[in-house]
């Protein structure tokens, strides 16, 4: 990827800040929130692929987070898979579920697509809460082993505290972000955007909307599921509560606050809306009311999001520079 010098400096600065952040905020509690913020970023990144880039508002995405968490913990608990295998298994199975759910849902468009994915999210919730033999139902899964890589006992890294886990998830999140940034410069990535802007027109120039949307949907499910896997091995407990409604709105607002269809938006939005509920924890009873109010205000008054504003500002600067040159 060839990038201008200034952008390169900006990016390395941002990454440096992210690397140093847990040393500024050293308390276990704040480090815990940092890790959670990064984990929820995956949810936002996944939604950004299908909703931000491809323009299909999928309401099932947060259920894929929970699904990823369940798949990963079940692979570890029932089959004794090591963490690396759990992660790969989660990616493969999430893609599989994405295909099964995407196939009927993507026949529809707009609102109807959204409602259908919501229905699937509900079915997953009921199955997970009722299949007690496999998932222990509402009691949830406990004793999920911590994340670790290695072979045998001698070459083994276990990510058993907040700091180590932060770097693990940060590495994965940055990898995913760079993968997405690259992807958006390929033919496929441009096909995503083409479908968002005008599905009929994109079909007329040889893009197959159904299958391109399917790829975006499966990709979104994989990224979101990966976040779920990281969540399970960090919190070491998953229950059907992870499927709840609240998360659907929250994931959307992460993407919107960050900036719809921007690469870095989900990271920023994810961080803000993981930290904000924690700040409001001081007034626990009013927390949902405050989060709800912030949500409404952002959608009404700040729909471009932070990265969207940055893009607008950059465009305007380029415009004035151009005008000055012409004058």
């Amino acid at each position, binding site marked *: 990827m060839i990038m201008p010098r200034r952008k390169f400096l900006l990016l390395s600065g941002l990454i440096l800040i992210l690397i140093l952040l847990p040393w500024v905020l050293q308390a276990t509690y704040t480090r815990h929130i940092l890790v959670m913020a990064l984990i929820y970023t995956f949810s936002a990144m996944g939604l950004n692929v299908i909703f931000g880039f491809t323009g299909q508002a999928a309401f099932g995405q947060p259920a894929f987070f929970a699904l990823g968490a369940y798949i990963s913990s079940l692979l570890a608990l029932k089959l004794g898979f090591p963490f690396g295998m759990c992660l790969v298994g989660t990616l493969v199975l999430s893609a599989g579920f994405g295909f099964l759910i995407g196939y009927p849902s993507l026949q529809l468009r707009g609102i*109807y697509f959204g409602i259908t994915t919501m229905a699937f999210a509900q*079915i997953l919730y009921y199955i997970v809460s*009722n299949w007690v033999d496999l998932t222990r139902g509402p009691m949830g899964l406990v004793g999920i082993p911590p994340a670790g890589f290695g072979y045998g006992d001698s070459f083994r890294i276990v990510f058993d505290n907040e700091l180590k886990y932060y770097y693990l998830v940060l590495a994965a999140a940055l990898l995913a972000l760079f993968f997405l940034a690259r992807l958006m410069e390929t033919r496929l990535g441009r096909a995503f955007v083409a479908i968002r802007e005008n599905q009929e027109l994109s079909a007329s120039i040889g893009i197959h909307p159904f299958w391109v949307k399917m790829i975006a949907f499966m990709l979104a499910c994989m990224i979101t599921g990966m976040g779920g896997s990281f969540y399970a091995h960090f919190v070491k407990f998953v229950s059907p509560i992870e499927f709840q409604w609240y998360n659907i709105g929250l994931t959307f607002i992460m993407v919107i606050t960050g900036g719809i269809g921007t690469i870095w938006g989900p990271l920023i939005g994810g961080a803000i809306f993981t930290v904000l509920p924690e700040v409001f924890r001081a007034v626990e*009873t009013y927390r949902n009311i405050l989060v*709800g109010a912030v949500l*409404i205000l952002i959608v009404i008054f700040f729909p471009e999001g932070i990265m969207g504003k940055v893009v607008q500002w950059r465009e305007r600067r380029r415009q004035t520079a151009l005008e000055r040159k012409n004058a």
Partner: protein
Amino acid sequence: MWEATFILAIQQIASGLIIGAMYALMSIGMMLILGIMTVINMAHGEFYMLGGYFCYFVMTKLGVSYLAALPLSMAITAGVGIVCEKATVRPLVGRPWYSSFLTTFGLSMILRDTAQIIWGVDPLEILSPFSHKRVVIGPVFLTQHRVFVFLAGVVVIGLLYLFIKKHKVGMAMRAMVRDREASALMGINLNAMNSFTFALGAGTAALAGGLLGAIFNVLPSMGELPLVKGFAVVIMGGMGNVQGILFSGLILGVAESLAASFISLGLSDAIAFAILIIILLFKPAGLFGKRI
């Protein structure tokens, strides 16, 4: 043995029809709001919840009878609906449809937690005068209240059907489903119609809340399941089609209560969505569907 199963099935069908009528009553408002305003109203379940609470408080605080409390709570909830529409939907004219999904989602969080703070989490029981009298129809035993719920639901949906078909305002609503701009040019006041649609939706949801609050209980989170079931019914019925909504609601109610006794109690809630997906695969425009 066979006969006992048969009687159980009939009993379940009867109670399914009652719940189904309420699903239909919930979904009518959601369908109107979706069709006329292109808004997925995520706070609809909260209107249902408010209907239950207002009904309870009008009865206990003002000492009004149940039959008078129902329309009163409908009116109050409709007023709340108008205010909510002004605050969360009106500012979003010309924005993509998911914007209002999100603001009404935020609204639902606010309403639910406000209810929880003011009224607590303990379930309240609405006392219906018909609750303790029995009705026997052949092999089926029901309370009078359940029969009342079914009749009230069907009558209100029938009235709505006539209203939308015949009345001038109903005709304006249908025109707006077809083409908003053109109907504005014909002199329809879009803002007033949006307020009216929201009030109508909130009112019917409140009626369902007041009616079912006497069978189940009234509590802050009671609106969540009816909301998601409501969406299933809206899609099943096909858009812009009142009778379709009624039949889909009834089908869903019956399928669920049969599934609850013959398949699994826990999974009965998933039946709605399984049916929904099958319908979408084979008849994407809904069971009764011409999609507008």
